[in-house]
């Protein structure tokens, strides 16, 4: 016996020591008394085939309904009765549903939220319902708290007894009149048959449309129409987050819509109306938008947003599930029907206040969390950074591809609608979607670390609505999850005294007694944490009406600034931590929201008339993926060329823009006051070419500028003349075309230099790809100039050197000969030493530095006097994964032996390499795979070695990428170490740099720009990089803070032009208009 005890003790010690990373301990209902399970009983009459949101689950609301200082729990059930549990302390709960009278009368309940609807200081409960389909009856119910642990259902009295398809409701005081209004979220119940135009959202539908309900004191009135709230048949509203996103004092809203309907970003105009500004602020959104939440995760005082979707992380689930739509369908949805770009994965939007959000979910590491219902930000471990809990799981996965195939075939003999036998079989075929919930640890640099396996001890299940609050009054945030077919989970936070915290509860004047909408800024050690009190967060739930901060090992904070909903502020100093502070407005003074607008000085101002440079580049609509279906990105969209130089010998610099395929080039001549478009006949003729790069310089030493144009476009192939680069020399009467050596390549860069010191300008021409044969390495050339005639410099190391994107001439070893540095895709930066006009490659960097390099520029970023090199790369905000040890791999071979090559890009994941694309995509090019893998299950989870024969893979050429980050080569005595830029600069490819003294401080800075759209919907869209001005290693300003508007533009070129002594920035974008900014010095 004693022995046994000893062993148990030992085990216990072991258990504790193994488990010291556990943050949340799940506690059984046997201990807590929380006996509630949202059991749903599938029947022939009612299942997911009859009601598309059959698995969305119930709601959960946390609040102290009896004002005893302990947090109570209300849970709504779809088919089971609701339950209310009173907190008796020590995590013991007592059910009082019957007595309280809140079990509900509707047959299908959804979200449940608490709020003080009548302004008496007591939390009331609003329970949503789906009514009017599948025989569902009842209405949304409002339980008014009587203060004695009983409630009176009063929905009708308050005119909140809607019998529609409600998901949830949120409380906010949108008109700042001091009472709580309601945003009611409804959902459509039909599946898409045809998309319908976006205008459908303007046609109000009572059952499916969302509603804004104004509190008129005792009753609510529907003000949706006048307030500008959409209410159409295509609204699949699953979640709404309220927050003052633009920090102007008026609460705004983000509404997540499932399926093809866009999410809505409602900016409060401050006059009782809202304007949906989604397209302006968001380049793209999640597609099957589910839960969402807002919190400031990067300490800038602005609420950031997460929107959840259902992309799986697990290879097996991922490859068995339906993925993103194809590029042509997406194009049609956007261009013909008016929808926005949507992709099926979680999105994390980093707020930039008055310009577009940075979308960073992929680089932040939270893009794929499977069938995700709710996400809640909070500082769960109290280290001062916001963490993220994501609930997930679905009883059956209706997007399983084998299942879809199954129901598509074996039931052909029965009409699906007539016999329920089919349904039963269909339901059995759907695989279970039980999954573990996710928890991510936040950090200071926008990234999150997946701690699910160490911080959580729960089993796989189906968690939907979640809510947070301090259930055991120990200071940290606990969490409650409403599960389907399983008992409610209580996640008890184990942080306890290990880190400092502060809880804030507000006593605000009636009727908004809980101070919903109050903002809190906590300042300490030069750091800011910002929180805003909204209780309805995540999905179908409301959390404790309390603001919680974690402060790590800080024992004291400098101050708290509280901004009340009525736009007054109050500062509190000397606050003891580790307590719950109850705050009421005291010594308040008016708060000016304008003080929150960024203080960074604008350096750029858009010029209204563009100085006459009215150029819009129109990309031809060639889609590379129609021809080479598996390539990782397009190559036909690298234009347009921009070149600056005097083209008419009047001493003023003009602007040349290359045309895309079948578009003529355009020339804007500088006059005394502006630029005027002029045609140069000789140049206008060659419009078949796609001009990707151009260079203006005097090559024939006649004191007149000439022009070399590098053409590409990747559409033309073999020895097609539009692939020949062109060369024009200027004579007195215009330009004449000259011969260049005949090589048929897709050009990417032309750089001039007198490398052989013979007094004329030679050029390096870099080429990027071989048309129709992506993965094959093209040749690049030095063209030697002899009296204005060019010939290929032979016997140089530039044959098959790489997929070149950029080049610079730079005497990096200071020996008097200009050397050459090349960058490109699937290769490392390459240094070529010039000795007497002959080039030899030198290894000056880490050998494993292959990137998808886009651009290079010399710049002394560390201010130590030598030249460093800034490098634009693909960015890390991508589904591609690359590291030194586990590079991104691209297999290049003729996999199906049909005479044309394919590329298969593979990511490393848990010990193996997996194709990035799924079976449908691969088989669209390599048909034999369809025979080899007749089910998706047989293909899913298979690494590349198990998909192709060894012999096939051995014969493939493998190209690699070790880093996707943009950054710089730091020069330490001519040995270069690569240092990545901070994460804000990794959201998109950086495709161009410009060095200039932009702010007039007599020091040069580098302006970086990028974004890129030439990828399939599976990869999304790199649209949110606002540009960045790089002063030095630590001082980098994002473009939006200094007056630039680069979001949602694929910027290809930056140039300085001067007119009448003033400097201007000219930006050129692919498939967009050129823009001119004045430099404000």
């Amino acid at each position: 016996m004693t022995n046994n005890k000893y062993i148990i003790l030992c085990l216990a010690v072991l258990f504790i020591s193994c488990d010291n990373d556990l943050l949340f301990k799940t506690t059984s209902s046997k201990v807590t008394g929380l006996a509630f399970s949202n059991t749903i009983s599938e029947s022939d009459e009612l299942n997911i085939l009859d009601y598309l949101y059959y698995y969305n689950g119930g709601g959960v609301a946390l609040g102290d309904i009896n004002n005893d200082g302990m947090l109570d729990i209300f849970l709504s059930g779809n088919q089971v009765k609701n339950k209310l549990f009173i907190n008796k302390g020590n995590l013991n709960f007592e059910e009082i549903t019957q007595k309280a009278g809140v079990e509900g009368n509707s047959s299908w309940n959804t979200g449940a939220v608490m709020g003080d609807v009548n302004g008496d200081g007591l939390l009331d409960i609003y329970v949503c319902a789906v009514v009017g389909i599948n025989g569902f009856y009842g209405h949304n119910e409002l339980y008014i708290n009587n203060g004695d642990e009983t409630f009176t259902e009063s929905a009708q009295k308050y005119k909140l007894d809607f019998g529609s398809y409600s998901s949830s409701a949120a409380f906010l005081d949108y008109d700042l009149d001091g009472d709580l209004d309601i945003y009611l979220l409804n959902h459509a119940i039909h599946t898409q048959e045809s998309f319908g135009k976006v205008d459908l959202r303007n046609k109000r539908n009572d059952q499916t449309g969302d509603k804004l309900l104004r509190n008129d004191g005792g009753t609510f009135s529907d003000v949706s129409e006048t307030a500008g709230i959409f209410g159409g048949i295509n609204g699949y509203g699953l979640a709404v987050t309220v927050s003052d996103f633009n920090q102007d004092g008026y609460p705004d809203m983000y509404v997540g819509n499932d399926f093809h309907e866009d999410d809505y970003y409602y900016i409060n105009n401050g006059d009782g109306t809202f304007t949906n500004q989604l397209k302006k602020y968001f380049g793209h959104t999640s597609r099957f938008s589910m839960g969402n939440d807002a919190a400031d995760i990067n300490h800038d005082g602005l609420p950031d947003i997460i929107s959840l979707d259902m992309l799986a992380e697990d290879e097996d689930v991922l490859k068995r599930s339906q993925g993103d739509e194809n590029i042509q369908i997406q194009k049609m949805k956007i261009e013909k029907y008016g929808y926005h770009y949507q992709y099926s994965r979680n999105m994390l939007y980093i707020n930039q206040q008055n310009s577009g959000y940075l979308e960073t979910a992929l680089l932040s590491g939270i893009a794929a969390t499977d069938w995700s219902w709710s996400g809640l930000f909070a500082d769960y471990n109290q280290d001062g950074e916001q963490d993220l809990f994501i609930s997930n799981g679905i009883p059956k996965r209706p997007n399983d591809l084998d299942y879809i195939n199954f129901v598509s075939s074996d039931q052909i003999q029965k009409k699906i609608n007539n016999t329920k036998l089919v349904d039963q079989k269909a339901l059995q075929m759907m695989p279970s979607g039980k999954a573990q919930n996710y928890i991510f640890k936040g950090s200071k640099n926008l990234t999150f670390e997946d701690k699910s396996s160490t911080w959580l001890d729960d089993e796989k299940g189906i968690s939907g609505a979640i809510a947070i609050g301090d259930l055991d009054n120990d200071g940290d945030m606990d969490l409650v999850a409403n599960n389907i077919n399983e008992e409610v989970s209580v996640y008890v936070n184990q942080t306890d005294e290990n880190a400092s915290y502060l809880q804030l509860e507000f006593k605000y004047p009636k009727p908004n007694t809980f101070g919903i909408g109050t903002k809190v800024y906590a300042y300490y050690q030069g750091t800011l944490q910002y929180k805003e009190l909204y209780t309805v967060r995540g999905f179908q739930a409301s959390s404790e009406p309390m603001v919680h901060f974690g402060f790590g090992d800080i024992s004291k904070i400098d101050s708290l600034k509280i901004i009340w909903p009525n736009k007054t502020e109050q500062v509190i100093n000397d606050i003891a931590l580790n307590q719950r502070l109850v705050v009421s407005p005291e010594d308040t003074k008016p708060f000016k929201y304008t003080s929150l607008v960024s203080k960074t000085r604008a350096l750029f101002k858009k010029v209204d008339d563009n100085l006459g440079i009215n150029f819009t580049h129109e990309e031809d609509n060639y889609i590379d993926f129609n021809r080479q279906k598996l390539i990782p990105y397009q190559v036909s969209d690298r234009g347009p060329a921009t070149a600056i130089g005097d083209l008419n010998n009047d001493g003023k610099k003009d602007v040349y823009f290359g045309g895309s395929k079948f578009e003529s080039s355009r020339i804007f001549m500088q006059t005394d006051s502006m630029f005027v478009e002029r045609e140069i006949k000789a140049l206008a003729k060659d419009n078949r070419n796609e001009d990707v790069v151009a260079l203006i310089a005097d090559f024939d030493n006649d004191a007149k500028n000439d022009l070399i144009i590098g053409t590409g476009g990747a559409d033309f192939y073999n020895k097609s003349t539009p692939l020949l680069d062109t060369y024009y020399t200027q004579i007195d009467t215009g330009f004449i075309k000259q011969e260049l050596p005949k090589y048929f390549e897709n050009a990417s860069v032309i750089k001039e230099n007198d490398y052989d010191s013979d007094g004329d300008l030679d050029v390096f021409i870099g080429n990027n790809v071989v048309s129709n044969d992506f993965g094959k390495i093209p040749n690049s050339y030095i063209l030697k100039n002899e009296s204005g005639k060019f010939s290929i410099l032979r016997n140089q190391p530039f044959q098959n050197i790489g997929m070149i994107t950029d080049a610079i001439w730079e005497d990096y070893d200071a020996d008097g000969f200009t050397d050459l540095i090349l960058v490109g895709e699937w290769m490392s930066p390459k240094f070529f030493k010039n000795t007497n006009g002959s080039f030899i490659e030198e290894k000056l960097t880490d050998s494993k530095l292959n990137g998808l390099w886009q651009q290079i520029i010399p710049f002394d970023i560390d201010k130590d006097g030598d030249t460093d090199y800034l490098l634009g790369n693909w960015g890390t905000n991508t589904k591609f994964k690359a590291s030194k040890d586990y590079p991104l791999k691209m297999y290049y071979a003729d996999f199906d032996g049909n005479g044309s090559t394919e590329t298969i890009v593979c990511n490393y994941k848990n010990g193996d390499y997996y194709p990035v694309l799924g079976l449908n995509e691969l088989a669209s090019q390599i048909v034999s795979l369809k025979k080899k893998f007749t089910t998706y299950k047989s293909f899913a989870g298979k690494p590349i070695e198990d998909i192709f024969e060894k012999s096939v893979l051995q014969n493939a050429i493998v190209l690699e990428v070790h880093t996707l980050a943009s950054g710089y080569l730091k020069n330490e005595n001519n040995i270069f170490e690569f240092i990545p830029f901070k994460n804000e600069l990794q959201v998109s490819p950086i495709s161009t740099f410009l060095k200039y003294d932009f702010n007039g401080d007599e020091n040069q800075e580098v302006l970086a720009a990028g974004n890129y759209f030439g990828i399939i919907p599976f990869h999304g869209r790199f649209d949110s990089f606002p540009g960045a001005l790089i002063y030095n290693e630590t001082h980098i300003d994002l473009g939006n803070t200094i007056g630039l508007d680069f979001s949602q533009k694929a910027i290809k070129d930056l140039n300085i032009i001067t007119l009448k002594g003033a400097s201007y920035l000219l930006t050129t974008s692919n498939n967009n208009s050129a823009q001119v900014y004045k430099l404000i010095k």
Partner: protein
Amino acid sequence: MVKKTCKSSLVLLMILFFVSSCKETSEPIIVTTKDFHTSVDKVMEVMVHDIFSPPVASRVFVYPNIAAYEIIAQKDTLYHSLKKQIKHLKEIPKADPQKLVNYPLAALIAHINLSKQLIFSEDKIEKHRDSLYSVWEAKNPREFKDSKEYGLAVSTFITSWMGADNYAQTRTMSKFRVNSENESRWQPTPPSYMDGLEPHWDKMRPFVLDSAAQFKPIPPPEFSMDKSSIFYKELKEVYDISNRISQKGDQSEEIAIAQFWDCNPYVTVTRGHLMFAVKKITPGAHWIGITKIASKKSGADFNKTIFAYTKTSIAIADAFISCWDEKYRSNLVRPETLIKTYFDDEWKPILQTPPFPEYTSGHSVASGAASTVLTSIFGNNFYFDDDTELTFGLPIRSFASFEAAADEATISRMYGGIHFRSSVEIGLDQGKKIGKLVTENLIMAHE
């Protein structure tokens, strides 16, 4: 000629004598017409499961039939080999006279084996094949082995000929590029907005046609939304027909006709949280089904049955090459796209619009070709009860002739709201020309 036949008969007689004398215990394997029909049915079932587009389906039918036909034509002097009659087909290997080859058995084995190669879910065919193999093997191992060897040898021969038909190359050619700027051009249609199917089918090697464009139809009526234009009138006609039929309700004759001839291999259904497909046979498969009905009803023997399948499937295969050539040439928009834009944004056709351009109607071309060939084999006014769609829950329909069936299949596309009048009428004519060419140019049976 006569001499040669005598000689080979003599050899055969000797073999038979030799076989029967030393292998008295084994009974001969008898392959029936029914066995062949069953094999065709099996392939059709797997094709429905695997989902083949109409043009690809026509290819899956034709090669196994040709393999079987070439084998029986070796033996049965009533039938002429297709060698040198259809593109690049050379004489198939001869059976080793020392072997005990049962030609019908070899034909069936070749048919099964080639079919297996052409579909995806091989296991389903293998199951069917293996059960047959075990029966045959038990009955007469030697005859089975020798016939199998020969059947597979011919199958390999046909495979290599088939390999040069440009199918592999067309798999990896570029996807069809939708021109969304021009509203007269085809656009993907609801609910699944699939890409245009088989944009390069015109590059397939035809069988009897000299080229895909041999029967290039006149261009469709010029696109115009002017109310007096032919195009507009035809568009309005589709809309009006659909309204008229819808008023009559689901029991109307027109809806019955439209559904009977739907033959869309992939009808997308949305239900609850998901979108899936109800799979059906293709137009070509429907006519293969009618071939079976006619063969059975007319009491065709094993060889005639194979002959009928082969000739019909050749006509159908060429019909799809010809039709697809025109589809991606004229690249015409579907009625659904325009009706939703101009008349009624909630309009839905009675049948789901298939994912390829409108002109000419594939079903019409295939029906014209197949019915012409069937008439040449089984005669005019061949009355039959068509139960092909019974397995898909649709009733039997009866026709006085193949031509009557083709006429109904043709008009069904207008009832279904997926084709304009010009497309079905000109398409039917296009198909009949192909059928006539096949009938007149292919010398197959001595009759």
